[in-house]
């Protein structure tokens, strides 16, 4: 070997140094005290406090909004103390054992982040005729009841790197909730941006959370609220729907971002209007819209499957369940009906929390709800909240920390 690298004057000593690495290490170890191993780290505790697996909550107060067929539930930690802080616009997933079923529903937090420090979140629930969980909550949940929820989640919040200083917030009906939270956050100095809310309701007397919104707008020049009434023409209110022209009318001169949160019909309508504005994608942020209600109307859906009921075998850790799954409902709903505690959060196909392995069977996943990762599509994973059965199915689902 031509190369001969020497570090010290006597090369042999270097070889010894190499050989002694183990002995030197042992020496360093033995020189240390045999003290108890501490595995408690502030950083990990901070992370856990901000992002708990679950929160045990209790309903502190129920505020009725009869004009809007809705109620706000003020939730506190069962054991008292502050709740995890959050970004205004985020949601929590409520876990609802109803009869033999085990449901979960995402609700935007309608209170401001500051409330969390005082140990409170508010969620505002609007009646949903023909639905299941919302109406059950309105009829049954009362002060003192216990309820389990996820920590705050989601990416629907203001980000100074991405969003313009001025946000045009488009809301319809109960979907005002994340914007109310943002408005509180702006008023409290937690967030710093200007927000003009274009809020669609049917008539002036049915506007949900109107008083709260108007109080903030009166006190805080950064927040502005414009009511858009579809079923009524009235002085001081816009009439009709949220159109491109209306957005232009209230948009600032400089570049602005558009945030949208609304029911499925509003998304579809407003989506077309926004296209007319020619805004780049980075300036338009839709909140998740849930999963399509009438899957059989989606392109490519095999008509013959529509009314069938299939057999769903669920594997979860060491357990196995056999249940029914209707073609028109997502796999997650079938599991929830049967009381299987399958994980879920956004119920919109986006967060990936329900990600499960399809072991056998055929499914349909609507393109517009498909938030899967590339490799998940390739290797047969599905998001059960946004996946419909087309045959008997075997599904391996993750556990749930409940």
């Amino acid at each position, binding site marked *: 070997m031509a190369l001969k690298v020497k570090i010290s004057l006597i090369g042999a000593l270097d070889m010894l140094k190499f050989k002694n690495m183990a002995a030197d290490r042992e020496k360093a170890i033995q020189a240390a005290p045999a003290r108890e191993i501490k595995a408690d780290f502030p950083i990990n505790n901070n992370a856990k406090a901000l992002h708990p697996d679950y929160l045990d909550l209790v309903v502190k107060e129920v505020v009725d909004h009869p004009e809007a067929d809705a109620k706000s539930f003020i939730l506190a930690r069962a054991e008292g103390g502050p709740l995890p802080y959050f970004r205004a616009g985020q949601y929590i997933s409520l876990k609802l054992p109803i009869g033999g079923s085990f449901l979960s529903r995402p609700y935007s937090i309608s209170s401001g982040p500051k409330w969390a420090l005082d140990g409170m979140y508010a969620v505002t629930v609007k009646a949903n005729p023909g639905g299941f969980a919302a109406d059950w909550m309105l009829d049954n949940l009362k002060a003192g009841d216990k309820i389990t929820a996820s920590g705050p989640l989601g990416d629907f919040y203001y980000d100074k790197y*991405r969003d313009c200083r001025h946000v045009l917030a488009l809301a319809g009906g109960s979907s005002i909730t994340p914007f109310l939270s943002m408005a509180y956050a702006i008023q409290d100095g937690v967030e710093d941006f200007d927000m003009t809310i274009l809020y669609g309701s049917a008539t002036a007397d049915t506007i949900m959370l109107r008083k709260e919104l108007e109080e903030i707008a009166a006190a805080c020049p950064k927040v502005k609220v414009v009511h858009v009434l579809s079923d009524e023409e009235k002085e001081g209110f816009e009439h009709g729907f949220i159109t491109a022209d209306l957005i232009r009318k209230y948009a600032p001169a400089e570049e602005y971002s558009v945030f949208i949160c609304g029911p499925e019909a509003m998304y579809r309508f407003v989506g077309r209007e926004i296209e007319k504005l020619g805004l780049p994608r980075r300036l338009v942020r839709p909140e998740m819209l849930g999963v399509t209600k009438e899957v059989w109307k989606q392109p490519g859906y095999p008509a013959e499957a529509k009314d069938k009921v299939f057999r769903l075998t669920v594997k979860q850790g*060491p357990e196995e369940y056999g249940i029914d799954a209707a073609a028109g409902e997502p796999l997650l709903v079938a599991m929830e009906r049967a009381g299987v505690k399958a994980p879920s959060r956004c119920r919109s196909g986006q967060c990936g929390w329900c990600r499960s392995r399809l072991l056998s069977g055929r499914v349909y996943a609507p393109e517009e709800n498909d938030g899967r990762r590339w490799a998940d599509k390739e290797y047969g994973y599905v998001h059960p909240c946004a996946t419909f059965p087309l045959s008997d199915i075997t599904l391996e689902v993750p556990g749930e920390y409940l």
Partner: protein
Amino acid sequence: MVKYDAVVVGAGNSGLSAAIRMQLGGRKTLLIEQHNLPGGCATSFRRGRFEIEPSLHELCDVGPENNPGEIRELFREYGVKLNWVPCPDCFRVISKYSDGTPMDVTMPDGIDAFIAKMEEYVPGSTPKMRELFELYEEIRQGAIYTAASAGKADPNYMREHFPNMLRTGAYPVSKVFKAMKLPQKCQDILSTYWGYLGVEMDHLSFFHYASMMQRYVRIGAYIPLHTSHEISTAMLERFRELGGDVWFNCRAEKFLFEGDRLCGVRTSMGDVACDMCLPNINADIVYGKMVPKELVPEREKKLSAARNGNYSARMFVAYFCLDCDYHELGITNYSYFLSGGSDSAKEYANLMGGVKTNDYCILLCYNVANPEFSPKGTCVCSITTLASPVDWNDGDPTTYVARKEAMTDKMLAIVKEKTGIDFTGHIEEVSIASPWTFARYLGVPEGAVYGHEVRDWDGIMPRMMMLKQDYPVKGLRPIGAGGPRGDGYSGAYITGSLVGKLALKDLNDWAEGGAK
């Protein structure tokens, strides 16, 4: 109670590797993971129309198909098939030489190209650089030999074949560079990778640095076509094919013992009986939280005390999805190492001082290596730095976002100042991960993803030499970035395989010995 031969706790890089190894060895294995998907660091997340790579910059030792490196070989042996994409160049570094003059250097991969380029920047350096790479190669070979001999290397064979490794390996990098009389400018450029190991050149063994650098330069680095989630998913698929079971959203809480021998794992989904457990978890957590106090060996307590919580690489990463082609932003390179200077000791001190003094970051643009990384007309970049507990120990949630933004502002300013690259007006999606984020998803101490620092006496060579002493509890063999092969993707894969082999041997020995 369900019963398996082995339970691997945690489906990180090391856990996936160990799980395949155990199943290949014919042992019925259960893999449990507290999160709902595999990979640990090696995963991905979706934002809008983008899929973001959270951790992998480049994976060394894959190599081209006709000249495979250790990792490509390992994956072949495992039967894991992947789409690999080469990363162009080793790096571009914009910093200062030790004499204070500006440094802006782009080093290609391939040893000859690397040396030729160095000659351009540092005329006359070629003979010394040739010597250096000859030494690097000897050390790489020596490392493969020592790993293969699993703690039973033959000293005579070593002396004959790897004499220079024996002479230099135990010294700090800076000392060997000096002894070799490398021109100072070469030393400055060659120090660039220190940030990948998170230990300064005065405290990092030359053995470690040389074997790593050789792995990067010799056959280049690679990334998977569809983020590291593709690697993890493909590995998990292989594990399933081999007959392994996996439970997600399942947390291991305690190890169960019969006398002083491990007999099972308590999990959030119930108790599981097994003869062998390989936790993909930092040893401090394994012995500090999961083994009953009275069974924690004296030596583990001492080892932990000697390491004294010197966790490595508390990550801070800002991810930006941009609505334009990377050329439009003036991005020309895959990875930019940006720092205030080339003195790693000073840079390390600056990092540990927190946001006020930190002047180090790595800018990466995935599309430069992989044009398919994001939709046409868009690109994805990340900016990575190492964080300090001084910024993140404070638990006040109301200042958390501001702290993240302060660090991000600083990194964006460094990028702009050093490269002229400015994302303003193009950011379509953004996500910022702090040590809290990594602590949340991985459970690693302080959000540090490298385990304990591979510093001074606790380098990878002495760890490799002490495989016998380092697993004092029967049936318990921790794996992961804190293991014998150290941090990084390749280190974790190899540790999983290596310790998996030791575990298989245990199980076979016990079966032969008639003991359970």
